[in-house]
């Protein structure tokens, strides 16, 4: 009896020690989770475009929130396949990998990907994450005529970063994306309706026509290189408008090599590639927007 009690006590003591050890070390499990939480999220349906170049991951109907219906999925796949073709045309380079899209339901997008009104790209993984916006849409005929469910912006990031190299400046990274997409949308209003969707030209026209007492919102190329912390709604249309002119003026073959060049080296490299001084290019840009945006 005594021996049994002693043995039982030993076992209990060992168990207590093990539990104590485990409790002491339990908080350490969260060491990386304080910074990064891994979500092994496998609740996806997968659709592939006719050409097999777009692989859309979307939520099944059973998933919480508003999942896309079959018609929307087909529309997105067709849009993105066409956009992929157009992006290659615009930059004059080929890209034959598949692009993976992860489309989150609007109710979960803010928490899952950090925005409920758009998305972001990870070119290394040939993918981008985006919010499904179940707004009424116009059947897709001309990619420049309507703002698609998902624009080309993130798709351009994936293709350009893979084909032209890692972007060296925000100006060219965002500039290519906005210029080739042609549209920029901001802030989805209640119900998932897109509050403002405008072409780059329309945004710039508004900035041109605004009250002259407001701070000027048409940026010079020098400002575009240095003031990269400006709010997106100002920076993005300006970068897109400027890059659009560069592509028209010099051609993609001459502008493409500038894509991976760090911002501080860009003026010098631009002069070397185009044979035109940065000051002259800035003057030409100002003349261009003053002419094009004049009432």
């Amino acid at each position, binding site marked *: 009896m005594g021996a049994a009690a002693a043995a039982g006590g030993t076992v209990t003591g060992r168990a207590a020690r093990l539990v104590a*050890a485990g409790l002491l*070390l339990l908080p350490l499990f969260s060491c990386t989770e304080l910074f*990064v939480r891994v979500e092994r*999220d496998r609740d*996806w349906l997968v659709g592939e475009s006719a050409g097999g170049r777009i*692989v859309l991951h979307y939520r099944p109907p059973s998933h919480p929130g508003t999942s896309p219906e079959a018609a929307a999925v087909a529309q997105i796949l067709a849009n993105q396949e066409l956009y992929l073709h157009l992006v290659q045309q615009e930059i004059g*380079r080929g890209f034959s990998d598949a692009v993976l899209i992860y489309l989150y339901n609007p109710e979960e997008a803010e928490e*899952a990907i950090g925005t409920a009104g758009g998305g972001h790209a990870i070119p290394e993984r040939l993918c981008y*994450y985006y919010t499904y916006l179940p707004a009424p849409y116009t059947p897709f005929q001309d990619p420049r005529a309507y703002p698609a469910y998902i624009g080309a912006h993130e798709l351009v990031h994936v293709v350009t970063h893979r084909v032209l190299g*890692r972007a060296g400046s925000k100006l060219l990274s965002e500039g290519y994306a906005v210029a080739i997409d042609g549209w920029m949308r901001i802030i989805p209003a209640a119900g998932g309706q897109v509050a403002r969707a405008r072409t780059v030209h329309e945004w710039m026209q508004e900035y041109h026509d605004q009250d002259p007492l407001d701070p000027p919102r048409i940026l010079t190329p020098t400002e575009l290189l240095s003031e990269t912390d400006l709010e997106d709604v100002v920076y993005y249309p300006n970068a897109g408008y400027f890059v659009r002119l560069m592509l028209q003026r010099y051609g993609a073959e001459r502008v493409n090599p500038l894509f991976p060049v760090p911002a501080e080296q860009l003026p010098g490299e631009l002069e070397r590639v185009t044979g035109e001084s940065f000051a002259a290019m800035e003057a030409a840009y100002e003349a261009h927007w003053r002419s094009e945006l004049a009432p």
Partner: protein
Amino acid sequence: MRSCSCRSHGRRVAVVCAAWFAFAATAGFGEPRTALRLGVRYSPYRSYSQVNRDFPMVAGYPAFSADLVSLEGTLVLAGGRLTHLIRGAVVPPASVSSDDGTGQNYLLEPSLSRLSRAAISYGFEHRLFSLGAVDFLQGPLLGLLYEGRSLRYLSGQGESRRDLNVGIGPALALEAALGSGFALRSGFTGIFYLPYTSFGRLESVNEEGQSQSASYRPFTYAAVFELLLSWRPRSGGCIALGARKHDQIGFGGREPAFVPRDILASRMDSLHEIFLRVSLDLGTNAPGVDWGGANHGSGSRGGRDRDG
């Protein structure tokens, strides 16, 4: 101005770390006893994508994956209240694939994508206190990690990155003797690979064969939680079986920095590992020496049935 400030900050960090090591490594070291540990480790490697960039970030699919097998050896030098550990490990090149979240690989050509690693570390452990049969150990670790990852996408474009990381961090462990030669150990190691002492090179080749390359300075944090069961036969030596949760996160910018800026490479790696290792006594007067300071903490505690 900014880079001067960063260099100055980096120097201060290096000086403090060196002083910590020098002070601790020379304290309490008595007559040495040695052991050699040899081990093999299986690590399913998963490198996740950055799904949410807001803090705290969310990592997810698509993930790069590989089955890594590593060989490792550790020289254990114990004396006084300290146990010094010099460890080397190598992961031979392993094939890399991808998982989109549904188990499909849409990205990589596994036969042409490779991952390899090599690591060297030096650290020591110091027994802080004991509660019954449980010892609490702590000590710093200085680590050097090389990783090379070469990816070939299905289109033929490629991207490779190689980085050499030097870092420092704390190690903590609890060891409990279970009797009959068995011991249980749970430990935590955190290593900060600093951007001022780490270097990386990124190279990419597009489908047309045009290449780009850039240098980056990685700043990553590795957290390793380990649970290990060991057994020491009466004949000497020690055999141990364990599992580890090994996460490494961070980024590499064009310039060394502790805040993300101009990022060229990011890392959200998670490995759940199992390992087996054997300890061989090398002229020791403390049979069963494997890892922990508890074995050697004092004359009255010497030779306990521990492994670590």
